[in-house]
């Protein structure tokens, strides 16, 4: 494939181009705004530093997320695998699961296997890996004959495999569809927007807290505002993405938006619950200005399987593509 045809192939759906240009534009605009406010002396030095740090992180994160999606399905699945392993690393160090080396090793194998099944486009194995991996995780530490803490380490490991293997793996599996690029880009954009919308609407309107015990800064108005904004954006973008399919119907697109927003917010609250229970603020220090990798990608964890099965039920994924491509 020449560069020209590869380019037109990657940008076959107009939404792909809109989102890539939109993100690039937003980064440039953010830089201009921060520079302008800095020059006008409107930003206190600590805030200025924080804003540049966050923007700098985004300038690395955005290409790291967008380029594999444009490059092809193998790259998407490879990126999802690395993301899953990075999340497991942070989760393991935060919960203490990392001290259970062999059980952790089983989770690593489970994550690799799920992504291998996605790469092979073998749905049967992809689905079978949930009970199989959990079974291996459950028996991994039995031969060491140390039953104390068995329930805790197996529960933590199964939870980890569910989140970073089984659930996140759906994001890579979506790439088996010929039209995956605009859909995954929209999901990443919508999930990010969902967080920002909840923050901005919550700060602007205020009002009662959502779940103060879990996450003291979230408000009910922010959650509802995010639900409305994300649903509108997803409904609009899903039109040209699913043109000519059953998913084009307005109620179905609205349903998709509601699922993305609710699953995204619950992903966020789920990580908040984990952090509150352990008594930590961030999951790591990998991304300056953001915290850990999990702090950035928590919202995606539940969105991936929810959207996969919703869209999969209505139009299916990769049904016209070859299966069992590796073995």
């Amino acid at each position, binding site marked *: 494939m020449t560069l020209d045809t590869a380019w037109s192939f990657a940008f076959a759906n107009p939404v792909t181009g809109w989102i890539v240009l939109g993100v690039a534009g937003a980064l440039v605009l953010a830089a201009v705004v921060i520079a302008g406010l800095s020059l006008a002396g409107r930003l206190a030095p600590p805030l200025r530093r924080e804003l540049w740090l966050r923007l700098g992180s985004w300038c690395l994160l955005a290409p790291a997320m967008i380029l594999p999606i444009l490059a092809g399905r193998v790259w998407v699945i490879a990126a999802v695998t690395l993301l899953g392993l990075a999340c497991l690393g942070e989760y*393991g160090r*935060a919960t203490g699961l990392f001290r259970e080396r062999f059980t952790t090793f089983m989770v*690593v194998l489970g994550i690799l296997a799920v992504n291998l099944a996605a790469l092979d486009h073998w749905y049967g194995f992809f689905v079978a890996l949930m009970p199989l991996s959990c079974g291996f995780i459950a028996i991994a530490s039995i031969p060491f004959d140390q039953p104390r803490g068995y329930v805790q380490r197996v529960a933590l490991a199964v939870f980890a495999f569910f989140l970073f293997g089984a659930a996140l793996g759906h994001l890579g599996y979506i790439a088996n569809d010929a039209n995956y690029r605009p859909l995954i880009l929209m999901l990443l954009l919508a999930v990010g927007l969902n967080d920002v919308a909840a923050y901005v609407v919550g700060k602007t309107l205020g009002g009662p807290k959502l779940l103060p015990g879990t996450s003291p800064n979230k408000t009910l108005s922010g959650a509802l505002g995010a639900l409305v904004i994300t649903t509108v954006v997803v409904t609009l973008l899903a039109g040209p993405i699913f043109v000519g399919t059953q998913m084009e119907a307005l109620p179905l697109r609205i349903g998709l938006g509601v699922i993305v927003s609710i699953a995204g917010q619950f992903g966020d609250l789920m990580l908040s619950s984990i952090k509150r229970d352990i008594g930590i603020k961030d999951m790591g220090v990998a991304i300056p200005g953001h915290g850990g990798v999990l702090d950035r990608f928590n919202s995606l964890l539940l969105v991936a399987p929810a959207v996969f099965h919703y869209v999969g039920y209505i139009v299916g994924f990769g049904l016209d593509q070859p299966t069992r491509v590796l073995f």
Partner: protein
Amino acid sequence: MDWKLKPAGDFGLSLRERLGSLRRELGFLGTATHWCWREIVRLYLRVFHRLRVEGREHLPEAPFVMIANHASHLDTLTLASVLPLALVDRIHPIAAEDAFFTSFARSAFAAFAVNALPLRRRATKRTDLGTLRARLTEEELVFILFPEGTRS
């Protein structure tokens, strides 16, 4: 040992800070690199030095502090590599910070290959010793210590 929902001792530190931390705990990857290094050292000692170990049965159960004289850098590597495999991620040679933790590369080697913990010679704080003592007993570790403080 009872299970505790407890983050790594060096949780929340940057990689650079982790390397030089007395609270460092190797994660999954760190244990793998440490284990590989140990096997390389064992192979080297067996092939080139025909190493023979006597009195292994006198080793107590962890935790314990292993004290030795210090004739060469091989002392640390040898002692760490012949201790039982079951202790592999719990053995920490105590190393001079001014010799082994001066640059990023040295610190990374000392941390991820040797699993050494840094001690400041002549500037050790009371809290440093307290941290080491607490970790030794709570986590059932093994420290390899050279009281001469330098090579004899």
